[in-house]
C-alpha cells in the first residue's frame, strides 16, 4: 500500500470500535468432542480460492484493516500444523499416497489447526481469518472421486464460519497470475496426479475448471459468497471490507435490540 493510501485509511478510522455481539457457533456435524460450540464467541471468516486467486493479498489487507479498527485477529491455513505438515509435504513430493490416505492426512492437519488455532482464538473472541478451510479440501477430494457423504461426515468436525468468501477467478487468468508469480505451474495445483493430460498447461486448465465446478456444487450446500476474483485488488478489498463490516455491525445492532 502506498503511503498516501495508508494515510487516507488512517484518517477514515473512527475512534469508536465496533463491538460485535458474541454469536454462538455450530458445528457442521458431530464436531469436536469436549468443545461446546456456544462457547466460541469470536468471528470466523474464511477466504477460499485457487492459488493465484489473491487470497493471501486480501487476507493481509483485511488483517491490517481489522487490527487498525480495533479487532484482534488470528490467521489459520492449510498444511500449517505441527503434527503432520512436514510429513504431508514429504508425502506430496513422493506422490506415494492414494486418495483416501491423502484425504485423511489433510483432515488430520485441518483438525490439528482447528483445535489448536481456530477454536482457542474463537473462544477468546478473536476474529479468525482462515486462508482456505474445509471447502478446498472437499473440492479437491470430490474431483478425485471420493464420496461426498463420506467427506461431509468427516468434515462435520468443522465450525460453521460466520462468512465464507470464494474468490472466483477464471482458469485462464489463474495461469497468467501463476506465471507472473513463479514462472511455473505447481504439480498439485495442476492436478497432474489425476492424469488428465501429460501437458501441464492443459492439465492445469482442465483441473482448475473441475475445481470450479466442485466449488459451485459446494456453494449450493454450504452457501458461501462468491466474489469475482477477476476484479482489481482494491475493488475486491472494498467489497470484502463492506461485507465484513456488515457482519460485525449486524451483531452490534442485535446487541442494542436486546
Amino acid at each position, binding site marked *: 500500500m502506498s503511503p498516501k493510501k495508508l494515510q487516507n485509511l488512517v484518517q477514515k478510522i473512527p475512534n469508536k470500535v465496533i463491538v460485535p455481539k458474541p454469536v454462538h457457533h455450530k458445528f457442521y*456435524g*458431530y464436531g*469436536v*468432542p*469436549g468443545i461446546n460450540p456456544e462457547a466460541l464467541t469470536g468471528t470466523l471468516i474464511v477466504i477460499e480460492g485457487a492459488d493465484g486467486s489473491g487470497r493471501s493479498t486480501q487476507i493481509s489487507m483485511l488483517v491490517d484493516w481489522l487490527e487498525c479498527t480495533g479487532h484482534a485477529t488470528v490467521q489459520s491455513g492449510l498444511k500449517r500444523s*505441527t*503434527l*503432520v505438515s*512436514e*510429513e504431508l509435504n*514429504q*508425502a506430496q513430493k513422493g506422490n*506415494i*499416497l*492414494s*486418495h*483416501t*490416505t491423502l*484425504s*485423511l*492426512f489433510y*483432515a*488430520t492437519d485441518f*483438525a*490439528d489447526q482447528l*483445535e489448536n488455532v481456530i477454536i482457542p482464538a474463537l473462544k477468546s473472541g478473536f476474529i479468525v481469518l482462515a486462508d482456505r478451510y474445509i471447502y478446498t479440501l472437499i473440492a479437491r477430494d470430490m474431483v478425485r472421486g471420493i*464420496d461426498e457423504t*463420506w467427506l461431509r*461426515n*468427516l468434515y*462435520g*468436525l468443522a465450525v460453521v464460519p460466520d462468512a465464507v468468501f470464494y474468490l472466483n477467478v477464471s482458469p485462464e487468468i489463474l495461469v497468467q497470475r501463476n506465471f507472473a508469480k513463479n514462472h511455473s505451474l505447481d504439480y498439485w495445483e495442476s492436478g497432474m496426479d489425476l492424469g488428465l493430460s501429460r501437458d501441464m498447461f492443459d492439465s492445469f486448465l482442465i483441473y482448475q475448471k473441475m475445481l470450479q465446478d466442485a466449488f459451485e456444487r459446494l456453494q449450493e450446500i454450504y452457501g458461501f459468497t462468491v466474489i469475482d476474483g477477476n476484479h482489481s485488488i482494491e475493488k475486491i478489498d472494498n467489497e470484502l471490507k463492506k461485507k465484513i463490516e456488515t457482519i460485525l455491525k449486524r451483531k452490534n445492532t442485535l446487541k442494542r435490540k436486546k
Partner: protein
Amino acid sequence: MKSFAELGYPGRLIAVEGLDGAGKSTQIYLLKKWLEKQDIKVYFSEWNSSELVKSATSKGKKMTLLTPTTFCLIHATDFADRYERHLVPLIRAGYIVLCDRYIFTAFARDVVRGCRPEWVRGIYSFAALPDIVFFFRAELEVSLRRILQGRPQLKYFEAGMDLALSNDPYESFRIFQGRLLEQYLQMSKEFGFIEINANGCVEEQQSVVRQIVAKMIPLEKFAQSKSTVYINQE
C-alpha cells in the same frame, strides 16, 4: 458394509481383536506359521505400522499433541495407507491377509476417547469387513496381569492418560481397558465376532482358531502351487 468375500475379491482377510495382553499376537503368529506351511499366500499387517504416517504418529504421541479427534484421524490415515497400498492389492491377488487389529480397534478406542461412534464409523466406511474376526476375550484381570507383569512401563496414550481418568498410570490403564472391553462386547454381536476364550492355554486357543479357519475358508484354493509354477532351487 460387506466382507471381502461378499464383494467378490479372490483373497480373504482375517482379523484378530481384543484387549492388550489377550494373546492376539501370539495366536495370529501361530496361524500364519500354519498357513505358510501349507504353501498358502499369506500377508501379515499390524495396526499403526504404515511407514510414512508413523513419524507423524510417534511425534504426536511423544509430544502428546494428539486430541481424541487427531488421534482418530491419524490412525485412520495410517490404516488407509496400509489398506489401499497393501491389503486391497494383496487380496485382489488372492492372498490371505492376517491383520493384528482392524477397524474395530479404532471403533473401541476412539469412542472411549469421546468421539462420536457414527463419525468414526463413517470415516472407516471405505474399508470392507474382514471375512473372519476373532475376538480374544479374556477376563479383564487376566489381560491386566499379563501386560502389567511383562511391561511395567506404560506409555501415555496406551494407558489412556489423555483421558484424565487417574493420575496413576496403572489405575488409568485399568479403567481404560475396562471401557475398551465394554466397547468390544457391544460390537461382538453387531459384527459377528468369533469369540475365543483367551483365558485358556495357547494350544487350546490355536486349535479352535485353526479349525474355524479351515471350516470357513477353502484353504486348498489358496495354495501357491495352484496358481504359480514352483521352481525348486536345489
